[in-house]
């Protein structure tokens, strides 16, 4: 033994490689370890007692448990891009060179000046922050910032995570959660029966609880079973893997930590997140050891007794050289012998039972002090246990026996089943009065709990239940457990004024729960949220049952009536990165690019997301800022001409003998009477009468139509159309195909648009008579079908030119070459927005899911003589009542003012507040043509208010702009330009 590992013992240590010693860093100090150590075992071996600070009171805390139930030893690993906070030191294997830091302390966990908070602990009961800092209410945000600084877990990473994570999918006949005797036995039985088996064990080694002890026969069984399992090709064994979620139809999620003893390979993920669809789940997650309740039971050195023996047999680490062991079942004598064999000086064994029997007598005969009918009342020592106050409680009046000095207090309140997966699978629970624990009461969806997870804390029971479950045979009836000789670990007299902690991580003591009960809390769900009981990273594994029992006692209720809190996935914390996997950055947010995207990028386009697409918002050559650029672009379109990539608009091909009739049902206006080669602007409503989408429909054949819809609405429109066809009018013979990606489309607008079209298609007659507004020509370019539709969004003479997407880049390039002679420029969505606002054309800002055609001035598009989706609703009285918001235009007194974001409209900006809002600005822009700021707004009875003065205000920003209500069409009301 090196001197820097004072607590390493030669006994046990089955998981570590004693031949090698490596080093890692804890709070800047080098700590030696053997490969196979967890962070916790290495820290314990080095004699480190304080490894963390509690959440609220900053009390010093040490390692308490062995696995996922660890409430105290939370650490931060790595730094910069590898920084990961709130890792449980008990389950993270140490790697050489690893950097580990304690957390929630300043300057460090050993000193921590915030520890002063503990001095005022009586002033900080449950709900303290809610009660104290809510006045005045406006100051809460300020208080909260300070409180968060003091109360918290590890620091959030500030850099992007550099680790790799992977997703995996698998199918299985049987998924087994847990690598202890029950799980192994089930895996063997299922595997030998030819089933596809996945065995997920959360530790590095198989064996579960068998690894925490020495037992010749059971160890032999373990070795033999592992050998047999490894020989079965249909059994997949996954270590460091935890089943974290159970979902509908037997989908399970697994979190796998990839451990590399000799360094990580390039590209190797740190964690894999599995989704496994399995016919059956066998829950063999074992039991959770419960703490005992006594004063200052959270001091470093107080530890679960079962966990303490686990540290000996797994890691060769002594949690104490002179420990006191306390509990109420025979395991404490076995654990005492483990410690004696490992060289410890066991100071005393404290048994709650008056008459524990032979094991106690035998140990006492070997000269170990055994106190029967006694309990620990309080731990002494602050940064490290120094002594335990032991009281006799078997007599009428409890009395102090002795203050027994010790460097560790190892306690156990027995085990309760790990119910997380059973409960997540919506299994029912029943109360086992022998175990004093909730146990599974059914097999939800055929998913069965076995072994400790069922309440069978016995090797023989566990392996026989495993064999039955593996073969899908019924389990033996749960053996009636021995009579409840166990003192309930929570039902102990309070003989010390010191706090008795229930939830260590969140500093919830028994008094907090009693206080919540006195204040009227009855539901455990409410008590949980009020006191934060069980809300830490350990998910209340140990605290939950005790909290329930204390609440039940405090309100004088049966524990079965109190019930349990809802178990939700994940059962143990999972890194966000693992859940995201590779779906981050561009893979997380796929970008759809139009055929001309390369040109846009090369010409310095600034892009904006539109649905899943990216579109040029403006071209930087036209202005240094978006504001400058869009004004220049819009001006160019109105004066000469512009071209814009409109490929992202949704396009749907509708064919069939009933296509016309069908479209009459989709659009408020009539489509069936369109002549061949003609188009019409149409509105679609939801069945409740609100505008759903808009676009232009062209008749491209006798039985064929080409629909366009908005970029963002394309997929919902397609679903809507399929619904109308398949569900509402299935007798119609119509075939619908989304074809957005098949086409590239460019809109050419402005006074010189026809010149550009002629240059592109010399010899083609594109005069008003050959190609009038809402007309269409079909021709060829590059030997490809080319559709030219004369439609206008900008209000100018405008053509939309469509070609196969494969030829889109070529078409755009050709057009841009021809355009330069005509001084026609490419423009982006920002200018397009300004142009359409000048024309009062609506977009999703106005068709916001609440407005009807009438509201936005498109009532004339509703043909009430036919049935179309949503039209019936328009005759409901609510849509003709006064007070509906209507689309209007706004101008402002200060011509070029910018309008506040989220602006509301009021009649006045003086006098008492709150002033009623008449409506809001939906879109605004600076009009290059009018040389002033214009806006569209939805205002209550807006049409009646045209000419009235209003204020455009933002109470949040403290801004106010005076203006006037006007008609929403700002330029060319007659539409002479688009007919030019």
């Amino acid at each position, binding site marked *: 033994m090196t001197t820097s590992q004072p607590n390493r013992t030669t006994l046990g240590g089955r998981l570590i490689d004693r031949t090698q010693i490596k080093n890692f860093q804890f709070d800047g100090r080098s700590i030696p370890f053997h490969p196979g150590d967890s962070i916790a075992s290495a820290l314990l071996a080095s004699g480190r007692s304080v490894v963390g600070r509690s959440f609220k009171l900053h009390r010093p805390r040490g390692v308490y448990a062995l696995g996922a139930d660890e409430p105290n030893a939370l650490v931060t690993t790595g730094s910069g891009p590898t920084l990961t906070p709130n890792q449980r030191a008990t389950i993270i294997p140490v790697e050489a060179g690893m950097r580990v830091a304690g957390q929630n302390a300043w300057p460090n966990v050993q000193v921590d000046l915030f520890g002063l908070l503990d001095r005022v602990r009586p002033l900080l009961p449950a709900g303290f922050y809610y009660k104290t800092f809510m006045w005045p209410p406006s100051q809460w945000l300020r208080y909260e910032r300070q409180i968060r600084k003091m109360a918290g877990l590890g620091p959030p990473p500030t850099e992007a995570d550099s680790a790799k994570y992977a997703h995996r999918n698998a199918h299985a006949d049987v998924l087994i959660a847990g690598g202890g005797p029950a799980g192994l036995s089930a895996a063997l039985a299922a595997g030998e029966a030819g089933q596809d088996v996945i065995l997920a064990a959360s530790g590095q080694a198989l064996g579960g609880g068998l690894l925490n002890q020495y037992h010749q026969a059971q160890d032999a069984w373990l070795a033999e079973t592992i050998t047999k399992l490894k020989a079965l090709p249909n059994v997949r064994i996954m270590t460091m893997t935890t089943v974290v979620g159970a979902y509908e*139809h037997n989908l399970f999620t697994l979190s796998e930590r990839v451990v590399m003893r000799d360094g990580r390979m390039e590209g190797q993920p740190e964690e894999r997140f599995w989704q496994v669809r399995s016919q059956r789940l066998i829950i063999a997650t074992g039991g959770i050891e419960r703490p005992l309740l006594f004063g200052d039971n959270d001091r470093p050195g107080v530890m679960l007794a079962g966990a303490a023996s686990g540290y000996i047999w797994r890691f060769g680490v002594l949690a104490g050289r002179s420990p006191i062991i306390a509990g109420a079942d025979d395991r404490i004598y076995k654990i005492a012998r483990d410690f004696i064999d490992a060289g410890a000086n066991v100071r005393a064994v404290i048994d709650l039972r008056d008459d524990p029997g032979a094991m106690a007598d035998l140990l006492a005969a070997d000269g170990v002090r055994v106190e029967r009918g006694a309990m620990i009342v309080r731990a002494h020592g602050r940064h490290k246990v120094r002594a335990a106050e032991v009281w006799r409680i078997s007599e009428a009046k409890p009395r102090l026996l002795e203050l027994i000095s010790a460097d560790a207090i190892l306690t156990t309140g027995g085990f309760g089943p790990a119910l997380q997966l059973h409960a997540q699978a919506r299994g029912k629970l029943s109360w086992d009065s022998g175990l004093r624990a909730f146990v599974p009461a059914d097999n939800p969806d055929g998913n069965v709990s076995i072994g400790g997870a069922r309440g069978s804390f016995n090797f023989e029971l566990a392996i026989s239940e495993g064999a039955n479950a593996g073969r899908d045979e019924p389990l033996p009836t749960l053996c009636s457990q021995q009579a409840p000789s166990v003192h309930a670990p929570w039902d102990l007299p309070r003989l010390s004024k010191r706090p008795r902690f229930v939830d260590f991580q969140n500093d919830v003591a028994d008094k907090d729960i009693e206080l919540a009960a006195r204040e009227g809390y009855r539901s455990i769900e409410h008590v949980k949220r009020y006191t934060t009981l069980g809300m830490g990273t350990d998910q209340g594994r140990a605290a939950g049952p005790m909290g329930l029992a204390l609440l039940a006692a405090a309100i004088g209720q049966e524990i079965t009536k109190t019930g349990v809190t809802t178990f939700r996935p994940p059962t143990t914390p999972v890194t966000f990165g693992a859940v995201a996997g590779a779906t981050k950055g561009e893979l997380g947010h796929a970008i759809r690019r139009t055929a001309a995207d390369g040109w846009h990028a090369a010409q310095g386009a600034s892009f904006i997301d539109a649905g899943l697409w990216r579109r040029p918002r403006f071209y930087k050559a036209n202005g240094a800022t978006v504001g400058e650029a869009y004004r220049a672009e819009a001006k160019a379109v109105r004066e000469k001409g512009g071209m814009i990539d409109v490929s992202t608009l949704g396009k749907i091909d509708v064919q069939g003998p009933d296509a016309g009739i069908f479209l009459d049902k989709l659009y408020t206006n009539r489509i069936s009477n369109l002549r061949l080669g003609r188009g019409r602007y149409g509105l679609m409503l939801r069945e409740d009468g609100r505008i759903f989408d808009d676009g232009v429909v062209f008749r491209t054949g006798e039985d064929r139509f080409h629909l366009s819809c908005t970029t963002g609405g394309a997929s919902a429109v397609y*679903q809507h159309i399929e619904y109308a066809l*398949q569900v509402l009018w*299935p007798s119609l013979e119509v075939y619908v195909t989304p074809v957005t990606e098949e086409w590239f489309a460019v809109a050419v607008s402005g006074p010189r648009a026809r010149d550009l079209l002629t240059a592109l298609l010399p010899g083609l007659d594109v005069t008003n008579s050959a190609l009038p507004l809402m007309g269409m020509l079909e021709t060829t370019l590059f030997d490809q079908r080319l559709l030219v539709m004369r439609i206008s969004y900008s209000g100018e003479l405008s053509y939309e030119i469509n070609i196969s997407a494969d030829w889109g880049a070529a078409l755009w390039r050709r057009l841009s070459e021809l355009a330069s002679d005509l001084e026609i420029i490419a423009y982006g969505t920002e200018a397009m927005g300004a142009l359409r606002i000048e024309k009062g054309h609506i977009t999703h800002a106005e068709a916001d899911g609440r407005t009807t055609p009438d509201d936005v001035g498109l009532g004339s598009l509703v043909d009430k003589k036919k*049935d179309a989706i949503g039209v*019936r609703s328009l005759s*409901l009285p609510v849509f003709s009542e006064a007070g509906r918001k209507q689309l209007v235009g706004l101008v402002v007194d200060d011509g070029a003012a910018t309008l506040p974001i989220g602006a509301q409209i009021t009649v006045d900006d003086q006098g008492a507040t709150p002033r009623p809002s008449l409506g809001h600005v939906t879109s605004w822009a600076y009009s290059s043509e009018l040389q002033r700021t214009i806006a569209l707004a939805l205002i209550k009875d807006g049409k009646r208010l045209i000419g009235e003065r209003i204020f455009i205000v933002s109470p949040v920003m403290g801004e106010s702009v005076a203006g006037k209500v006007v008609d929403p069409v700002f330029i060319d009301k007659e539409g002479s330009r688009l007919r030019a």
Partner: protein
Amino acid sequence: MLLIPCPHCGPRPETEFVYGGDARVKRPDPENSTDEQWTSYIYARDNPKGQHQELWLHNAGCHLWLIVERDTVSHAIGSVRAVREGQQ
């Protein structure tokens, strides 16, 4: 996550589907329905405990609208058929 047996594509995860609400709701004749009947069609929905018939669109698959029998308590799925079947 539900596993929905699409009659055309086979068993597929819920994420491929779009939920379409209660399949038993029928669109009334707009000409011969009172405002009450019409608004009930649009807004009023049962929230049954147990057996339910639901519309699901296999959006990332065959694009069929399906009628799925689902138990709202156990999530057990009974029959699944295309809406079109039996209507034409």
